[in-house]
């Protein structure tokens, strides 16, 4: 058992990136194959970890800990528990599929795949780090690949969107850095595990804990994103290439939700309880505002982007309802949204690529020309609106049941009911979008548009299989997640 699984999973993509970038004279085909290999192995390894994960222990598993910078007591400390393992699997799954999704990239493919693989390493690092400095390091590294991916391979106002993304993220992480430094001197430690277990009264206080809580929260809220810090998201999504949208919506946003549970709730349980009503209110605003704005979108990708804001509102609601079920639901919702929205973006990418049109007003009747895409797009859409047998249903159901029955926030029932209204709006915009894209009279200009080819069919069926599997048998994930939620509930005193 001396094999360092997590290090291997995290750094294999980076190794692939270095090989792709620096081996001279690689053909385009070989670059893509290398990228596929260096993302498939982490996927296989993470699934293997999932099967041997001990479902009866709430402790951190597959831990690796080495002294890294003795001068500031920082460690190279990795490990996963029930909260992070599903997200690791989500990232490795998306990481492999986005390589397939990007198979048709022909602009500067070497650089493209190198950045894409580096992005995967940094996101995986965030989910596995148990040391605050290491966590922050991976958190920051992610910005650079994203900047290049959006600004070189994007569309539309890509340079503006890319720099907007960078400035928002850096602003958030600047606040987070101040928070992490304060936390470090309040406790004298950089270990998330020690800080959560030891409480905050360990050494000295440099500032009120509430202030540290909010410094960290701002960093995560930018990423999740929470209204009113969300305005980078529609731009970044709309202009990013398809595969990057998939990673962005699928895994990157989850860094925010994960950070909130791992740091804000676990380290500051009393502050979290105190400010939960406020944050739950923000969650409901995000849900309703996001959904309402989505209704008005006319660009296919922008529509899906705005729907993410609404769906991430459910995550925020589940987290700060601070109940066992709601936290489990929030984590499941992160996984489920990752797969469903990943699929939605992949399908939107296919429609845009094959029909060469992204304006909802000009699309229509595509079900004749691309029946497979139409069916799968509809499945993804139904998942997004929470139809039973899809993972979306299981996750949202848990969030709502958990929040409604939570005792941590007074009057949360009202918020929950308001949040459920979001589902109705979601049904509205999803069905309306499907109708505008696929139904109605067939249009002549799309007669030459192709349906999904064999490779595309392969990866979209992989998406659908995961959505259905988790939808029909959610316990496969919730068994793991609840072991991760248990210690958090212990800290919350419930």
């Amino acid at each position, binding site marked *: 058992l001396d094999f360092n699984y997590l290090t291997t999973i995290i750094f294999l993509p980076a190794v692939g990136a270095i090989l792709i970038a620096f081996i001279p004279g690689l053909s385009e085909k070989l670059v893509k194959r290398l990228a596929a290999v260096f993302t498939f192995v982490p996927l296989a390894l993470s699934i293997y970890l999932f099967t041997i994960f001990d479902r009866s222990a709430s402790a951190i598993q597959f831990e690796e800990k080495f*002294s*890294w*910078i*003795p*001068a*500031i007591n920082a460690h190279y400390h990795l490990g996963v528990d029930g909260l992070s393992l599903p997200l690791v699997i989500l990232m490795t799954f998306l990481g492999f599929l986005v390589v397939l999704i990007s198979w048709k990239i022909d602009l500067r493919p070497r650089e493209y795949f190198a950045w894409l693989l580096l992005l995967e390493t940094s996101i995986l690092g965030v989910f596995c780090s148990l040391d605050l*400095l290491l966590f*922050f*390091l*991976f958190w*920051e*590294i992610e*910005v*650079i690949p994203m*900047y*290049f991916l959006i*600004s*070189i391979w994007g569309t539309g106002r890509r*340079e503006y969107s890319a*720099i907007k993304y*960078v*400035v928002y993220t*850096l*602003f958030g992480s*600047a*606040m987070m*850095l*101040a928070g992490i*430094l*304060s936390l*470090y*001197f309040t406790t004298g430690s950089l270990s998330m595990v020690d800080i959560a277990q030891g409480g905050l009264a360990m050494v000295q206080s*440099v*500032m009120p804990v509430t202030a540290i809580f909010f410094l960290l929260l701002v960093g995560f809220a930018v990423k999740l994103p929470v209204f009113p810090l969300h305005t980078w998201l529609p731009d970044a999504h709309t202009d990013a290439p398809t595969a990057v949208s998939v990673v962005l919506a699928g895994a990157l946003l989850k860094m925010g939700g994960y950070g909130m549970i791992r740091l804000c709730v676990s380290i500051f349980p009393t502050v979290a309880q105190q400010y939960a009503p406020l944050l739950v209110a923000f969650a409901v605003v995000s849900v309703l505002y996001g959904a309402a704005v989505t209704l008005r979108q006319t660009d296919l990708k922008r529509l899906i982007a705005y729907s993410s804001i609404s769906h991430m509102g459910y995550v925020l609601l589940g987290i700060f309802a601070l109940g066992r079920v709601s936290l489990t639901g929030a984590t499941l919702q992160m996984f489920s949204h990752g797969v469903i929205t990943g699929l939605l973006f992949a399908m939107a990418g296919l429609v845009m690529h094959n029909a060469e049109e992204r304006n909802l007003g000009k699309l229509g009747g595509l079900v004749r020309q691309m029946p497979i895409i139409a069916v799968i797009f509809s499945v993804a859409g139904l998942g997004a609106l929470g139809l039973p047998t899809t993972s979306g249903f299981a996750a949202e159901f848990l969030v709502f049941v958990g929040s409604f029955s939570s005792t941590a926030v007074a009057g949360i029932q009202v918020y929950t009911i308001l949040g459920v209204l979001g589902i109705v709006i979601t049904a509205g915009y999803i069905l309306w979008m499907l109708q505008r894209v696929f139904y109605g009279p067939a249009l002549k200009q799309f007669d030459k548009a192709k349906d999904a080819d064999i490779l595309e069919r392969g990866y979209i069926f992989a998406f659908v299989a995961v959505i259905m599997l988790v939808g029909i048998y959610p316990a496969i994930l919730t068994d793991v997640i609840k072991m991760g939620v248990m210690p958090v509930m212990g800290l919350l005193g419930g």
Partner: protein
Amino acid sequence: MLNFELLIPELTLAGVAIIVVLLDLVVPRKGFLPVVSIAGVVVAAGFTIAMWGGGSQALFNNMLAVDKFALFFKLLFLAIAALVILSSVDYVSKFARFQGEYYALVLLSALGMMLMAATAELISIYIALELTSISLYVLVGFLKDPKSTEASLKYLLLGAVASAVLLFGMALVFGFTGQTQLGEIAGAIQGMSLAGVLDSPGLILGMVLMVAGFGFKIAAIPFHMWVPDVYEGAPTPITAYLSVASKAAGFAIILRVFYSAFGLPSWLSLDWGLVFAVLAAIGMTLGNVIAIPQTNIKRMLGYSSIAQAGYLMVGLAVVGFSPAAEVVGRSSLLFFLASYALTNLGAFTAIIAISNKVGSDLIQDYSGMGKRAPLLALALTLCLISLIGMPPAAGFMAKFYIFSGAVQHDLLWLVIIAVINSVISAYYYLRVVKVMWLGKPASEEKVPSSGALRLALSLSCLGVLLLGVIPGYIMKLAEMAAKMFAF
């Protein structure tokens, strides 16, 4: 005591400088000169490393200190000098005359800086400072074109004013304490009562004037006026040299003077700590904001170096705010200087390589460098990311370390200003990155670079990555250096 063996590194460097000048007279192949210079630097570095194991010693009646602090800086200056010489090879080979003098002056100013790091007495501080400055005045004007001459003249005039201010400050401090040796000044101040110091504003005025004089060296606002013009006009390797070595030497001397002479009593150190905190806040904000509209990359890096001096002064503020026994302020400052030196040298080396071919320092002419010279562009990108303070580069660890000290000592307000400044700086650094990777290349022609440049660039980039990913070792060295003060 006259333990001359403690001066061997300096004497070696002085000897090599003379040999280089003489060789220039007799050797027709000038390519030989940088080799001799670098060999001299390496030998001097070897002697310095050999002295690391020894304890703190003093020579010439406590005028010079040979402690780990001084040795750390000597090694840093030697490393910088070696990299600067490497990156100068191409540049200098185009000169018709005075190639030997160029290398000799680089070595002599490095000698001055090594002495600056070691001096513990006001008069020898001044002499070391002048040795450094005068060599640099000449080097700045080496191109002898109008811009370079203007830069040199400006640097000379403002530098002379700064020296005069510094001397005046030193005279006041001497007048009120009766001492020139730092340890004895400290003793005299601690012997005074609070009322005694307050009754003699001359001492405080002396300190303020010394801040101003040294502030010129480190390009702290409001003593920064010379920076953009001098950086733009000087030969690019010398700009790199100025931006890192001269600044590091300034910080070394400030650290030694203020920590050793004015470190106690604590109300005094809190006072100058606050002065540095305010200078830091203004410096980084103005430096970053003015850097945004710059179109010349050397000017932009000039303003960026003003901002970086601001981050460094956060470390000085921490030294003022923390108890004398605590090491984090000083060691984080040392670590920041090392990582900043590598980063800026890397950036300038890449600029030298690109400008050699493109013949312009305008940012817009870097368009499409990602296609024309992918490795150069990648190296420059890494250095710019390090200047922003993003991982996995050295700049991130340096900022983390220096800010962690600040948070500990009630300077959270300063840290918040500093991190917001990092976000602002990302805007103009990334603009260069954007132009290089997204812009259309002006021509398809590749940008070749010589072996010496490539060596200098890979060494600095390797250093930037190492300090960013496994900084433990250098941090430990910095900590040891910060602990071992002879005075």
